[in-house]
């Protein structure tokens, strides 16, 4: 596994940086420090130095490729400046656009994971079936076992963090941030009450 040649190589920061660059190029998933260490057989400080060197080489504006820290690891990605050309070449837009139903379902999974489909339905008030299926299909959510009642549970996966530019789920803001203001709440309450009264007046209750 770790023959002397490799060990020696790992000592040269420039060479280690080249190896790390090659690994990042080959891997479609972000690579954690740990994974890079296992693959390169390098010590952590050497690896950190190599990553610092790469970060310089990939400084914004220099290259058509970016070095990003995403989903708990490092990964290479194209520079957005090339998007027009990329769209012409691949004749399709970047994969992820979300319908409102998909975005809501994804938000519920991201914040409440693991969460079951009936729970998502209850929160949204409408069925989440086709949205969840599409998100699964696109790898944005994945199955995470079953609830005690046997319903499939969902969580977000690496693909979600990657596409949304997040290092980890901790970067998502606290959901309480979107609580309506007290004024908004009381407005809503009034509207509900008015609707309830309208119904009570207009609907002669059937026996």
């Amino acid at each position, binding site marked *: 596994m770790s023959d002397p040649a490799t060990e020696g190589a790992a000592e040269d920061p420039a060479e280690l940086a080249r190896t790390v660059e090659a690994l990042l*190029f*080959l891997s*479609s998933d972000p690579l954690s420090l740990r994974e890079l260490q296992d693959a390169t057989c390098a010590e952590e400080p050497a690896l950190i130095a190599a990553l610092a060197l790469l970060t310089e080489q990939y400084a914004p504006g220099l290259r058509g490729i*970016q070095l*990003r820290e995403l989903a708990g690891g490092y*990964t290479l*990605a*194209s*520079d*957005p400046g090339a*998007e027009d050309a*990329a769209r012409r070449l691949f004749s399709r837009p*970047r994969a992820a*656009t*979300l*319908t*409102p*139903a*998909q*975005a*809501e379902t*994804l*938000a*519920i999974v*991201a*914040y409440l994971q693991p969460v*079951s*489909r*009936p729970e998502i*339905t*209850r*929160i949204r*008030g*409408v*069925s989440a*079936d*086709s949205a969840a299926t599409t998100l699964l299909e696109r790898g944005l959510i994945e199955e995470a076992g*079953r609830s005690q*009642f*046997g*319903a*499939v549970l969902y969580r977000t996966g690496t693909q979600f963090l*990657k*596409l*949304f*530019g997040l290092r980890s789920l901790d970067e998502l803001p606290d*959901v*309480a941030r*979107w*609580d309506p203001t007290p004024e908004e*709440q009381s407005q*809503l*309450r009034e509207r*509900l*009450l008015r609707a*309830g009264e*309208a119904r*009570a007046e207009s609907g002669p*209750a*059937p026996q």
Partner: protein
Amino acid sequence: MSIATLELDLDLFSGPFDLLLTLILREEIDLLELELADVVLAYLDHLEARGELDLETATEFIVLVAALLELKSRLMIAGEDDEELLDIEPDEAAEELLARMLDASRFRSAAAYLHELLAREHGVRFRRAAPPAGVLRALPAAPEDPLDPSILGAAIGRLLVKPPPVNLRHITINRVSLAERLAHLRTLLARGRFNFEDAVTGADRMTVAITLFALLELYKRGEAAWEQADNFGEIHVHTLHEEVGAPVSAAVAAGAAG
């Protein structure tokens, strides 16, 4: 199967479960007149005929029936000829409903935030390619725990299953079909937006219901959404997805019309 397609044959209604829900929400069917016990019995019959319990479907069913029961009990109390109850009930009902709406609104905002994140990443693409052949060839012979090849045969078996033909005749008496209503809505959508009322001018109740069902279907597929400024107000329907939109929809509409 999904609980949505559970066939019901009740005194008040016969057709699939999700159409029943739609009609109730639209107040075309009075929930107070509906025997929920019959719905539960129909489901139990279905389970017995099937001989197995699909837990996910069962959970979904219980959630939906519980929601209907809750709604119905609320209606029954509000309907009592009692001034005091009338004063209090809408209040409490509103509080409960408010809590739910807040929950939903939180996640709608979170969804909007996810849209922002995604927009910020616009143009960032990742390389997705197979590892070099040399590297692949050198990989270890087998995982310690090989997968059972029968999952492949079973997957093919599932893919060979044809869906049962969709048949809404028993509720539409052949006058209006979901496909036709879908085509109708897509034609209207080609303009970008329209009023739901305009889509059903002069139509009978069943056509209205099927049209609403078709609208839900379009929403589910991400083709359309709607806004309703006030409760019981006008419903403005608009197109959602330019990509899925015009050309294909127009083709479908033309096909259905011909």
